[in-house]
C-alpha cells in the first residue's frame, strides 16, 4: 500500500497554499505533518485524500502507483481513510450507524447491505473502546468520544492508510495520550498513519517521521527528532526551544 504526493501545488482562494510539496507515506510508521497555522497542513491532507474541491494546481498524488484521480471514490475509500478535525455530522444517528458508514464502500450501497452485525465494525469499535457507546446517539457524545467513534469509522473501512487532522485538538491530556497510543498501535500493525499536529512535544513522542511546513513549502522531512531542531523551530515558529528540563518553548527575543 503506497500513497505518495509528488511536488504537489495547491491553490485555494486565488493563492498557493501548498507549493511543490512531496511526501511518501510509509506503512508501519506514524508520519506527523507539522507547521504553524496556515502552513498548508490540512490542504496536504485533503490532497492525499483526493478531496480538494478544485483538485491540484500542479504535481500528482499516486496510490499504489496509479494517480489518485484514476481510482473510483469507492476504491479509494477502501484504501485511504480520513478522520476530520471536526465532523459536520450533527444528525441523530446511533454510534453503531456512524461506524457502519465506514463499511458502505465495501459492503455496497443497497439500503439492505450492512444491516446486520458486522465483525469488522465490532472489531473497529472494540479497538477504539466505543463498544459500550454503540446504542448512544452520536450527537450527544463528548468531543473525545466523538473522535474515538470517527476513528472507529475510519478503521471500519479496512483502509491501511489513515489520515487524521489534528485528532487531539480539544482533547484533555488523558484522552490525547490514549488516542496517540492507539495510533502507535496501528503503526505497529502495519498501518500507514499520517497525522496533522500542532503540539511539537506530541510529535516528538508519538511520530516516527515528520514533514515540517511553512507558508505552504516543505522545510524539512525525515525522522521527527531530526526535523524538530531548536534552529528550525526558531525560524519557523519564532520561538526558542529549551530541551534541558524537558521540552519547553518560550517566545523568542
Amino acid at each position: 500500500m503506497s500513497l505518495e504526493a509528488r511536488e504537489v501545488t495547491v491553490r485555494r482562494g486565488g493563492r498557493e497554499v501548498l507549493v511543490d510539496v512531496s511526501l511518501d507515506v510509509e506503512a508501519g510508521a506514524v508520519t506527523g505533518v507539522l507547521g504553524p497555522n496556515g502552513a498548508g497542513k490540512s490542504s496536504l491532507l485533503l490532497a492525499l485524500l483526493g478531496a480538494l474541491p478544485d483538485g491540484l494546481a500542479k504535481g500528482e498524488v499516486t496510490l499504489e502507483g496509479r494517480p489518485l484521480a484514476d481510482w473510483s471514490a469507492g476504491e479509494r475509500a477502501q484504501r485511504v481513510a480520513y478522520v476530520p478535525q471536526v465532523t459536520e455530522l450533527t444528525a441523530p444517528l446511533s454510534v453503531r450507524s456512524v461506524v457502519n458508514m465506514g463499511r458502505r464502500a465495501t459492503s455496497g450501497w443497497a439500503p439492505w447491505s450492512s444491516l446486520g452485525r458486522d465483525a469488522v465494525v465490532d472489531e473497529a469499535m472494540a479497538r477504539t473502546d466505543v463498544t459500550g457507546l454503540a446504542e448512544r446517539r452520536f450527537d450527544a457524545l463528548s468531543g473525545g468520544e466523538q473522535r474515538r467513534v470517527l476513528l472507529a469509522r475510519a478503521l471500519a473501512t479496512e483502509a491501511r492508510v489513515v489520515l487524521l487532522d489534528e485528532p487531539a485538538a480539544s482533547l484533555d491530556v488523558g484522552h490525547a495520550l490514549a488516542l496517540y497510543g492507539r495510533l502507535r498501535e496501528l503503526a505497529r500493525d502495519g498501518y500507514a498513519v499520517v497525522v496533522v499536529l500542532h503540539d511539537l512535544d506530541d510529535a516528538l513522542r508519538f511520530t516516527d517521521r515528520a514533514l515540517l511546513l511553512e507558508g505552504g513549502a516543505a522545510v524539512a522531512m525525515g525522522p521527527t527528532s531530526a526535523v524538530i531542531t531548536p534552529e528550525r523551530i526558531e525560524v519557523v515558529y519564532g520561538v526558542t526551544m529549551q530541551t534541558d528540563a524537558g521540552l519547553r518553548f518560550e517566545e523568542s527575543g
Partner: protein
Amino acid sequence: MAGFVPPVRTALVTGGLLAALAAVATAGLQLGAGSLDDPQHGAIFLELRALRFGAAVLAGSGLAAGGVLVQGLFRNPLASPSILGTTAGASLGGQLVLLLQGSFIVGVRPEMLLSLGSVGGAFMALLVLLALLRRGADRVTLLLTGFVLSTLLVAAGSFVVSVAQAQHELGRAVVAFTLGGLGGVGWSQVTLAAPLVAFGLVAAWSWSGPLDLLLSGETEAAALGVDVIRARRWIVVWVAILTAAGVALGGNVAFVGLVVPHALRRIVGAEHRRLIPLAALGGGVFLAGCDVVARLVPTRAEMPLGVVTGLIGAPLFLWLLRKTVMR
C-alpha cells in the same frame, strides 16, 4: 440512560402510523356530502372518496419523501422540497395550463392537462438545475440557485394568477389550484401520479446509503466512498419526480415536506433507509388527515387543502422547534 435503538422505535412508529392510516381511511370514506347508503349514488360517492383518499396518500408520500431528500442533501432539517424550485415549477406549469385552458394541446383528455402541466413545469425547473450541476455546483450554489429559481417561478405564478382574474371562473380555478386541494381529483391524475411516486420512492430509498454518508459533509462522504457530484445530481432528480407528482395531484400543498420528515427524524433517527419509507407513510397519513379536516370545516366552499396543512403544520412545526430549543 436509555439507548437510542432506531429499529425498535421504527417498529413502534410504523405500527402507530398504520393504525392512523386505517382511521383516516375509514373517516375519509365515511365522511362528506352524500350518504354511502344512497341506493343510486352510494357507489359513486364511495369511488370518489376512495380516489380522493388514494390521491391524498400519494401526494403526501411524494412531498414528505421529497422533504427527507432535500433535508439530507442540504444537511438542514428545516429545508423543504420547494427549496429547489421544482415545486414552484410544477405549480407554474399547472397555472399556465389553466390559463391557456389547454387550447394548444390536442389529443389529451382535458382532466389530464393540469397534471401534465405540473409534471412538465417541475421537469423544466429540474433541467435548469441539472444544467447548473453539470458544472459541478457546490451545495451552497445549488441552494441559492434553487432559491432564486423558486422565487422567479413563484413570481411568474403570481403573474399568471393576476392575469387569470380577468375572467371570474378562470381566476377562481387558478387560485384554487394554487392553494391546493383534492376536490376534483380523478382516475387519470391518480394513474399519472402513482407510478411517479412509486418510482420516486424506490429510487430515493435505493440512495439511502449515499444520503446517510452525506450527512457527514461532502469531504467526509467522499472519503467514505460517495461520488458526491453524481449523488447530488440523482437526488435532485428524485426530488423533482416526487414533488411533481405531489403537485400534480393536490396543487401546491405547504408544510407536508417540512414537518413530517422533521418530526419523524427526531423519533427514529436520520438513517434514510428507515426515514424515507416512514416519511412516505407519515406524509400520506398527514395529508389524508388534513383532507378529511378540509371537508369537515364548515365554510361556504371547501377549505383549500394548502390552508389546512399550513394551519395544522405550522403550529406543529413551532411546537417541534420549541422542543428542540428547550432540549
